[in-house]
C-alpha cells in the first residue's frame, strides 16, 4: 500500500469529500492560496474555488459560530483553527451553540460541522501554541471528539467526521503532520467511537491517544527488552469513548497506564482511569497510573519543555515503578 504523510492523508480526505459532496466547505485562516499553515488544505482552493475554500479574517469566535449557522442550513463546514490554544476563543460556539442545538431544539436542526485543530508540545512553540485541550472539549455533551495518530485513521476519521450529522472536534498534533504511514486509497472511513489495539501484550495496558500512542509504542519496545509485555490501546475517539475495548484489555493484563498529553489534573486521563476503576476494579493488581503534562504553562526552553511533556521515558518509568 502507498505511504502518505499525515498532512497528505487529511488533504486527501478533504479533497475526496469535497468532490463527492458539494455541501462540504472549508473555513479558516490562511487555508486558501497558502494551503494552510500546516499545508493540510494545499491546492484545495485551486480545485474548488474561493467560495468553498474560504480564507477568513482572524476571527475564531465568529468563524466557529458561522460554522454552526452554515451547518444548520445544510452545508457541511470544516473549520480549521490553527492552534488548539485558540479553542478557548471558540468555546461559546462549541459549548453554548453547536453542542446544544440539536437536543435543545428537540431535533429540529442538525449541526454537521467539523472543527479541525492541532495541539501539543515538543516544537518550541511556547505556552500559547503548545497546549493539549482535549479534556476541555471532551467534557461537552453533544460534541464528538477524535484524535487520530496514524495517517490511515486521520483520513478515515476525517471522512467519517464530515459525514457525521453532529459537531465533531478533530484534534491533530503538530509533530504528526510529517509522519508517514500506509493509507488506503479511495473511500476509506473509520467509525467514530472505536479504539484500536495497536500492539498486543499480556502484562500492562498502555492507553494513549494522538502522539502519545507513538511514545507508548516506543516504551513498549523498551519494556519488551526487560521481559515486560505491553498492550497498547489507541483511543482514536475520545467522545464517545470506546470503554469496552479499554476494559477488555485491562481485564487481560490487570495493569493500566493512561497516557495523555493534556494536563494531568482534571485531564482526559482521569476520565479513562475512572472508567477502568468502575468497570474493572476487581481485575486490577495496582492503581491505574496516569501520565500527563505537568500542571504548568508549557515552557519554551528545550530542556524545560522536554521535562513537562510526557514521553516514552516517563511511561517506562511509571511501569518500572511497579517493580
Amino acid at each position, binding site marked *: 500500500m502507498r505511504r502518505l504523510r499525515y498532512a497528505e492523508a487529511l488533504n486527501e480526505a478533504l479533497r475526496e469529500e469535497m468532490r463527492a459532496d458539494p455541501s462540504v466547505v472549508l473555513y479558516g485562516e490562511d487555508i486558501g492560496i497558502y494551503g494552510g499553515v500546516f499545508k493540510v488544505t494545499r491546492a484545495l482552493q485551486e480545485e474548488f474555488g474561493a467560495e468553498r475554500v474560504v480564507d477568513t479574517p482572524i476571527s475564531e469566535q465568529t468563524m466557529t*459560530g458561522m460554522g454552526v449557522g452554515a451547518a444548520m442550513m445544510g452545508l457541511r463546514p470544516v473549520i480549521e483553527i490553527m492552534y488548539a490554544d485558540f479553542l478557548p476563543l471558540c468555546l461559546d460556539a462549541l459549548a*453554548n451553540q453547536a453542542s446544544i442545538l440539536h437536543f435543545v431544539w428537540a431535533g429540529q436542526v442538525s449541526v454537521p460541522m467539523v472543527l479541525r485543530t492541532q495541539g501539543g508540545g515538543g516544537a518550541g512553540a511556547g505556552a500559547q501554541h503548545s497546549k493539549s485541550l482535549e479534556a476541555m472539549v471532551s467534557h461537552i455533551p453533544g460534541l*464528538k471528539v477524535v484524535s487520530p495518530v496514524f495517517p490511515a485513521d486521520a483520513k478515515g476519521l476525517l471522512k467519517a467526521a464530515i459525514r457525521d450529522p453532529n459537531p465533531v472536534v478533530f484534534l491533530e498534533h503538530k509533530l504528526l503532520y510529517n509522519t508517514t504511514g500506509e493509507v488506503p486509497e479511495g473511500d476509506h472511513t473509520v467509525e467514530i467511537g472505536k479504539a484500536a489495539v495497536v500492539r498486543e501484550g499480556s502484562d500492562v495496558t498502555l492507553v494513549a491517544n494522538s502522539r502519545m500512542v507513538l511514545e507508548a509504542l516506543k516504551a513498549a519496545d523498551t519494556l519488551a527488552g526487560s521481559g515486560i509485555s505491553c498492550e497498547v490501546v489507541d483511543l482514536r475517539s475520545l467522545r464517545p469513548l470506546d470503554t469496552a475495548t479499554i476494559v477488555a484489555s485491562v481485564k487481560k493484563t490487570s495493569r493500566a497506564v493512561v497516557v495523555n498529553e493534556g494536563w494531568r489534573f482534571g485531564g482526559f486521563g482521569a476520565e479513562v482511569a475512572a472508567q477502568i476503576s468502575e468497570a474493572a476494579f476487581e481485575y486490577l493488581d495496582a492503581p491505574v497510573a496516569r501520565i500527563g503534562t505537568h500542571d504548568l504553562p508549557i515552557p519554551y526552553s528545550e530542556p524545560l519543555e522536554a521535562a513537562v511533556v510526557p514521553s516514552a521515558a516517563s511511561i517506562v518509568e511509571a511501569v518500572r515503578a511497579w517493580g
Partner: protein
Amino acid sequence: MTNAPSQDELVEMFRRMVIVRRLEEKLGDLHKQGRTRGPIHRCDGQEAAGIGATAVLGTDDVATSTHRGHAHYIGKGLDLRRVVAEIFGRATGYCRGRAGHMLIADRATGMLGGNAIVGGGMPIAVGQALALKAQGRGRVVATFFGDGAAQTGVCHESMNMAALWKLPLVFFCEHNQYGLTVHARFQSSIEDLHRRAAGYGMPGVAVDGNDVVAVYRAMREAVARARDGGGPTFIEAKTYRMTGFSTSDMGGYQSGEEMEAWRPKDPIARTRALLERDLGAERTAALAAEAGEMVERAFEQALSDPMPGIEDLADGEYGAGEYGADDYGSAA
C-alpha cells in the same frame, strides 16, 4: 410614502403587538403567582421593533433572536399556543419543553432561533447568510440583538465578515438603552450605534423604534438590498425597555422621569391612534380585544397540555441527521 405597509399589514402588525403585550402581561401575572419557571424577559415598549422588522420577512427567510424574543417569535409567525407551551415546559411546546422561553426555535417558520448568550446569534446568522447566499434563492437573514450585544467582540467580527462577503443579512439592533441594568452611556462612548456601520462599509440607519411604520419601512429597504445582493445593513431602532431586565430584576436604576418621558411614545398606543383614524375606534378596539382573547385561549390550552415524560431524554446527546437541508421555511 416609499416602502409603507398596506392597511392590512398595519392591522396585522397592531394585532401582533397587542398579542405580545398581553402575552407578557399574562406572564408577569403568573410570575407573581409563582407559576412561571426561571427568568422571563419582557419587551414591553419595544414591540414595534420586533414586530415591524419581522413583518417584512418571508416564512423562508431566517431570523436569529435573543433572550428577549417574544416579538420575534410572534412576528415570525409561530403558533401562540406552542410558544406558551414551551414557556411552561410542556411536551407540546416548540422544543418539547427542552428550550424554555429564551431558546425557542421553529424550523418551519425560519425562527433559528432564540439565544440566551448575549451576541450569540450573530455569528450563527453570518453562517446562515453564507449558506443562503450559496443557495442563490434570494433568501435573507435578520439577526436581532440589543445595545448590550453591540459591545461584544462577535458583533465586530460578524459585521466585518458580513460586509466583507456582502452577505444577505440585516443587523437589527433594538437599542432599548439598557444592557441588563447598566445604561448605554456607561457602555459606549457613542450614542448612535448605527454610526459604526460606516466603519465596516455598510449602510447604517437609525429609526424610531416605537414607530412600527418607520421600522417596517427601514427594514423593507434593508431586506430588499440584501435580497438583491447589495449586502448587509445595520438598523438601529431607538426604543426603551419599560419593564426590568427580567422577572428577577429588583429595579431601582431606571428613573421615574426617564420612564415618564418614554410612556407617551408607547408603540401600541401610537399604532392604535393611526388605525382609529382609518378604521374607527370601535373596529380598532375590537381588534385589540380579539388579540387579547387569543392570548387567553392560548394560555388555557397550553397550561392544560401535558409535561414531557422523562423518557424524552432517551434520545441522548447525538442526532442522526433527521432533517434534510431544504425543508426550512416549509410553512411557506
